[in-house]
């Protein structure tokens, strides 16, 4: 017991360098403002819309081809 307390104090000294860590929020510039404004949803919406358009095109193409395959009696 007499040796454990100094040991713990000694070990906890290692965590002093944690005080040197700055708030990450302020360090690296990210799109926090876009998120706070809610504007990020515009970006998401645009990209999702474009992708939805492409997917719709693919689906229509797929059904057209399936129809022709059925007519021609291909597998």
């Amino acid at each position: 017991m007499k040796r454990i307390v100094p040991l713990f104090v000694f070990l906890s000294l290692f965590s002093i360098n944690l005080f040197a860590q700055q708030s990450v929020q302020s360090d690296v510039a990210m799109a926090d403002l876009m998120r706070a404004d809610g504007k990020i949803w515009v970006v998401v919406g645009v990209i999702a819309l474009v992708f939805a358009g492409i997917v719709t095109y693919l689906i229509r193409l797929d059904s057209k081809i399936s129809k022709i395959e059925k007519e021609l009696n291909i597998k």
Partner: protein
Amino acid sequence: MKNNWWKILTVILLFYAIFQGLLGTVPRQPILNESIRNLYFHVTMWFAMITMLLVSMVYSVRYLRSNLQADDDKSAEFAKTGILFGVLGCITGSLWANFTWGEPWPNDPKLNSAAVGMLIYFAYLLLRSSFEDEQRRARISAVYNIFAFAIFLPLIFVLPRLTDSLHPGNGGNPAFSSYDLDSQMRLVFYPAGIGWILLGVWISNLRYRTKAIQRINNERMEIAG
């Protein structure tokens, strides 16, 4: 539905990638900032490309053994989709590099190797178009395809790692090992990768089915006329 479940999965996975990719939390890294999210789009596109080209090579091998035109069709269409993804990968990577590395094409070994790889596959397309006879075209392009893939892999995976490179995963830069990639990002990265691969399969699937229809139409015209 039994045959099309994977198409629905594609749509779900890619929508997930778009939403979670843009809205989810990512590590805050200097230089990269928000563009780290390109991991879900640029990098996954390259993985989809490699998968397409691998499948293309497998069908080439199958063609050489079976001599079935269907195998050659599939090989060609998967290669074309792979080339499409590769070109998109180059363009998106160039755009990304412009803002993070300072220039759109910094003469980096990985980039140059990727460009050479793309040229090899463009030559494959040229080769195919230079033959009239279907059988000869199929056989020669199948052989070329196998060699092209065999060269492509060392070109983009091995060579850049032997020297200095800006590109992640090469020249001592971190990449995808368990120590390098943030776990939160993995949650979006893997589904997105699968989604893009399935999208490539879907596109190739539509194309070679169209080819088969055209072939049957041509045969019927020949018989009729």
